[in-house]
């Protein structure tokens, strides 16, 4: 169960304590996140909502080890990532995080198969093993017949599904989704949300998603609002968790 009061005593998959993030703009200090606490258990689907500039993406970047906090700690599956060196953090990211971005961010020169294979290049898997993993991931997102297509030959929804396949192919600890449906029409957005829901329900994936879209948030088991740098639980949704 998702908690934001920092009182969880159990072993959460994601545990954030007293997280601060401040930026400097000239002489002005901007407090984006202040004393934020969060506990997410394995297999939960959590949506973060809030107005632009409320720090949703900052929180996601901190969770993904792309940014470092000003204060506080983040632990994922027992690893405290806040004090890891940049090199260690890179390795940790490769093993534990699956990113899904709003703009898909596929490499245009690679086919769907090659894009999905990218995270596996960092592993010691053989070519045959990599192929098996990629085929499985593409089958999960329903794009096995498009594996030789380049991103320009795919629709936006298909591109995002390839991005989802890339995010799950190395079987990461959790998925971080930054506005995954923000650039899609309703139908494609629903397909991607169906896919995320299925990944959570059927494959037990832990998903942390930032979204402006209330319909997207409805799919989550818990919706958290960012307000003045802190998280507030909005509802106990009837989502997958």
């Amino acid at each position: 169960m998702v908690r934001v009061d920092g009182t969880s005593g159990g072993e959460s998959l994601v545990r954030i304590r007293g997280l601060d993030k401040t930026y400097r703009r000239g002489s002005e200090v901007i407090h984006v996140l202040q004393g934020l606490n969060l506990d997410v258990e394995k297999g939960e689907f959590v949506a973060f909502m809030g107005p632009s500039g409320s720090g949703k993406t900052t929180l996601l970047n901190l969770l993904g080890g792309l940014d470092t906090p000003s204060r506080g700690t983040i632990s994922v599956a027992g690893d405290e990532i806040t004090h890891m060196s940049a090199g260690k953090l890179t390795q940790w990211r490769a093993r534990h995080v699956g990113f899904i971005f709003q703009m898909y961010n596929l490499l245009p020169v690679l086919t769907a198969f090659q894009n999905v294979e990218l995270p596996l290049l960092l592993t010691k898997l053989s070519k045959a093993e990599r192929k098996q993993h990629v085929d499985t991931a593409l089958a999960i997102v329903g794009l096995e017949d498009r594996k030789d297509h380049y991103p320009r030959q795919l629709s936006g929804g298909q591109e995002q599904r390839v991005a989802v396949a890339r995010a799950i192919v190395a079987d990461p600890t959790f998925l971080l989704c930054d506005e995954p449906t923000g650039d899609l029409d309703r139908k494609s957005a629903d397909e991607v949300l169906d896919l995320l829901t299925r990944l959570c329900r059927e494959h037990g994936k832990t998903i942390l998603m930032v979204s402006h879209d209330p319909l997207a948030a409805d799919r989550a088991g818990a919706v958290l609002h960012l307000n003045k740098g802190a998280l507030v639980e909005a509802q106990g949704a009837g989502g997958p968790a």
Partner: protein
Amino acid sequence: MKYLRLLLVNLFRKKIRTGLTIGSFAIAMLLFGLLVIVRFAFNQGVEVAGADRLIVMNRVTFIEFLPLSYMDRIASIPGIKGVTHATWFSGTYQDPKNFFPQFAIDPGTWHEVYPEYVVPDAEWKAFLDDQQSAIAGEVTAKRFGWKIGDRIPLEGTIFSGHWQFNLVGIYTGARPQDDTTQFWFHYDYLNETLKQKGARFGVNQAGWYVVKLENPDDAVTVVKKIDQTFANSSAETKTDTDLAFAASFAKQTGNIELIILVIGSIVFFTLLLVTGNTMAITVRERTAELAILKALGFSDRFILFFVLAESVLIALIGGTLGIGVAVVLAKLAMAYSNPLASVLPVLYFPADQVVVGIAAAVVVGGLAGLLPALAASQLKVVDALRRI
């Protein structure tokens, strides 16, 4: 190897730009290659000079003759394995532009001193049997379309008159850099003809002697001994090693090394700017993709080497292409028609210089890619993704 595909697809995503950059490299390295060929051509004598050979010339100037009688006296000096002599003929074949070196030689001793010139036994025997015969180097023979059995007319300049030679052999070089542009004929034919004409100039005189040492380490002693032998005579000698003679001959054409160094430096510096600019544009265009790779877990070091590898690959392809074309041009020129034959008879790209050229291209490629690669590796993912 698993990253090679990623490297190649990135390299050729902007085919025109990559093509033009590779083209710049190829043209620059072709220029470098041509400079190497010219440098080698000027220094060819130095490159092939025998470590165990000495050149004995007239002390006044090398265009003055030495008496033919010196031959036996030189041969009797200890430490000498063999002696031969040659005389510069300087005849004109059809047109003064058709220059090639012609030597009146002593066939009985020539072969022992110059073993790198290869003549088939039957052709050499035919040469020995006919005093009016001649042997041409394969480059010269190809250049004028000569075949064995042809009659070669030369118009004398130093030794006036119409001279006719029977071509009985074609020699090749044991090494690719050996000069195969020469034309040899019997000294006796020259000497006897001069005598018959009643000439005094050049009769019983040789242009220079070439000495083969038993041991190259004895060069200094033997040089002294030869020059002492002919000291205070009417034709004093100046003896040098083959290498020193060739080097002093090459120096007469000016400081080719300096010219090549200056041009080469400009070429490489220009390449550095061109490739550096291309790589900087490439990295700027791909900021988002590089950020994604980092987000996926590719390390800063991987990104550094990934960008560097692209730059080096451009350099490697362009460099190989440019130097390859230079090598082919040199080979074609020697096989068919050397346009510089009168000045630079041997056009050759030494194998070690191919390696040096390609290595230099790779170093330039690496240097050019270094700053963009560092910038890419230090890219902050969060900042880069914010710009998308």
